[in-house]
């Protein structure tokens, strides 16, 4: 196990390096730059800015400088948000996104697994049909539509819930709901089909023949196998969700990290693009390692090598 983890960590570092390198050269290949505005900045000012941030150097040298600094934990200053460091922006905004995203993954996991199981157990019945309608809706309706609908209904018409910011627990309800809609629907479907699959397996018949109680059959034998695909899905989902959703943050005015990803790219804020990308890549890689370990614990048949 220890050897396996070590191997995975080395591979993870390699992956992150590859992602960082690719991002660095791709973003520099895209036209445009960070110091552009509708009104031209004087050539002297542009030159001074480029010199200040080292953008006047050849690209290979910029790359080496960036990588060396990054290894020392220095991810540089944002080129657009003057006075803020990339680390500062991430540490300021990630906790906000992590709270909303974390709660939402938890909600989707609980609701998704429970409803998915119910649908499988009541296959072909009314509940199954209802759940399948809900999950189809959840997958088909885009996030911004859900956000706008929620906001219009509960925020503007009924005035039950606040629409701006995240200052009280009540403020979390709509963003979390909006963010959970899709993953819940997806987990429901995943859970339903893998549960049906598990229920049809020979070992279930054996369990039944042994005279195990229905509860034991379900939790000890069926669920344990059926949950594997969900675990695979939840790892990366968590990485994406806790880093924030651009749409949800924009609509509910949440000061999270999601907007920074998009803003950095459209503003060509090179250091912030690198910082957020490396951060997301690291999270995804870490989640994948955790998922593998969880797999091994759930299913002893899996050998980690």
């Amino acid at each position, binding site marked *: 196990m220890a050897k396996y983890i070590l191997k995975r960590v080395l591979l993870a570092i390699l992956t992150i390096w590859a992602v960082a390198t690719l991002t660095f050269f791709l973003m520099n290949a*895209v036209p445009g730059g960070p110091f*552009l505005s509708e009104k031209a900045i*004087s050539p002297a000012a542009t030159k001074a800015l480029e010199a200040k941030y080292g953008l006047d150097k050849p690209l290979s040298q910029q790359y080496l400088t960036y990588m060396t600094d990054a290894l020392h934990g220095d991810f540089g200053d944002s080129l657009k948000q003057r*006075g803020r460091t990339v680390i500062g922006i991430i540490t300021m905004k990630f906790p906000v996104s992590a709270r909303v995203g974390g709660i939402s993954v*938890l909600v989707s996991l609980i609701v998704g697994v429970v409803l998915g199981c119910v649908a499988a157990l009541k296959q072909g019945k009314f509940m199954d049909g209802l759940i399948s309608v809900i999950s189809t809706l959840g997958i088909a309706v885009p996030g911004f539509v859900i956000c706008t609908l929620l*906001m219009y209904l509960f925020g503007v018409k009924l005035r039950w819930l606040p629409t*701006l910011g995240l200052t009280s627990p009540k403020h979390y309800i709509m963003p979390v709901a909006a963010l959970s809609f899709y993953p819940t629907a997806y987990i429901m479907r995943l859970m339903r089909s893998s549960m049906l699959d598990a229920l049809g397996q020979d070992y279930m018949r054996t369990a039944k023949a042994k005279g195990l109680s229905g509860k034991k059959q379900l939790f000890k034998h069926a669920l344990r196998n059926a949950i594997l695909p969900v675990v695979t899905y939840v790892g990366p989902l968590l990485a994406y969700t806790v880093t924030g959703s651009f749409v949800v943050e924009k609509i509910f005015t949440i000061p999270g990290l999601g907007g920074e990803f998009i803003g950095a790219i459209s503003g060509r804020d090179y250091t912030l693009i690198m910082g957020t990308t490396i951060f997301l890549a690291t999270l995804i890689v870490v989640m994948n390692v955790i998922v593998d370990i969880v797999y091994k614990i759930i299913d002893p048949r899996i050998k980690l090598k």
Partner: protein
Amino acid sequence: MKKRIIALVLTAVMAASLVACGSTPASSSDNTQAPAASESSNTDNEATAEPLENVDGKILSVQVGPDPETIDPALNSAVDGGNMILHNFECLLTVAQDGSLAPGQAETYDVTEDGLTWTFHLRDGLKWSDGSDLTANDFVYSWRRVCDPNTAAPYAETVLGMVEGFDEAINGNLEALGVTALDDKTLEVKLANVCPYFGSLAAFATLSPVQSATIEANGDAWAIDPSTYVSNGPFYVSEWVPGSYILMKKNPYYWNKDAIKLGGIMWNLIEDSNAAYSAYQTGDVLMIKDVPTEEIPSLVGNSEFSIEPIIGTYYVSVNTSKAPFDNSLLRQALSLAIDREYVAGTIMQGTYTAATNFMGPGWSDPKGGDFLENANGGKPYIDNSDYDANLAKAKELLAEAGYPDGEGLPTLTYTTNDAGYHKAVAEYLQQAWAEIGITLEVNVVEWASFTPMRRSGDYEIARNGWVGDYADPSNMIELLYSSNGNNDGKYNNPEFDAAIDVSRTTLDTTERSAALHQAEDILMADAGCIPVAYYSDFWLQSPKITGSWHSAYGYWYFMFADIAD
């Protein structure tokens, strides 16, 4: 059995741990420090007016845009950032509600007869928001900082380019800049070239005074932390949660504090226009700038909905360095084939007005009065009233240019980014120019790629626009000067340049006015660019807000506002 439970729980824990690690409320940890920090730094200030914590009163909640990129006066080049700076800082002069210049930190100023030496006399007892004294030396420091290549201020050349020693200063020799503090209350500025509108620049946000103590201690980061963001205007920043809100409170050290009725202003940094509209409907926010365009038809006529012109023009750049666009007749045909009333009134939903000139309303004529009213002998350059006649004329011009009914012309390309009405206008142009036989292809480009493309001349026809920084016409008409960095159409007409050169050097206001009008005459006759519509701002504002106003530069002034009960 145990293992199994662990396994199931672990999945949940992955999520839970992340929730937990985010549970320290980072967003509020750095709040409410401004007053404390400000207090501690004014140790030598004996007569502390009143403890800053006790400043109370009504808080006005508004929305003028998302998170500003910067609120450092020297670095800002955006309208929303400028609106914040306007409430935190006060320049030597200010712009009054009627657009005229009014005394700010300087009570009076005088100009020598040759127009080259400007002397500003500061008020008595000026203070920073931390209670320390503000002197003429602070202006010297701030203006040198604008020139400092390490600051790399985008507006350095615009606001100080005419000051003596600017060329040396911009290359690092800051002492060379012709700005001197004769004593604590007197600031002398020596210009290298005459600049009749230097008063407007003295009221321009980039030239706000900034405090050397806080900047030297904190570097660029001074402007991101309320506790180090020392200012001198009617308000100071008390809290800033990026992406959420900026809370400003009344500055008790401001010289004119008695005129301020509000206790504070809450700037909601809402990015989405539908979210802003919801916040307005629920009453959380009393004024919003970002109104969803689809709501406009239902809002027109509503007393809470305002449309006011701002000083600027939406125009189309034609790349005159490329054939066939070097042909003035073709450009004129393109211009006349546009029904501007339709574009402004229908496509832009009446939120713009049809442009007849390049220089729209709001520009002041150097010889006095409105520049627009004196242009072209008082007549519009393009008569919008009879579109059919214009269209017929366009067809004639096109034939004269050698392309009867568009024959012989290749497919033309119109490049734009996708925001606001840009795409709708592009589609309209496709339709309008088809009327005279021209096939137009629309090329939509992402914003960050669009600007460099247009600037380098890598296009045929492109959307363009300009909003004035100050009311002197030179600010916009010079865009078409052959060597101007914003001359995206690469327009190069020696006659036009000559007229501009005269306007730059003459001290006589009548001559200067004539030269600027002549330049516009040449530009319009030549169709050096194609004006389409004049910009406006439109917004929703509750009648509860009293005493606020909106300026022709796109700023809202809430400093002297109040909220009616």
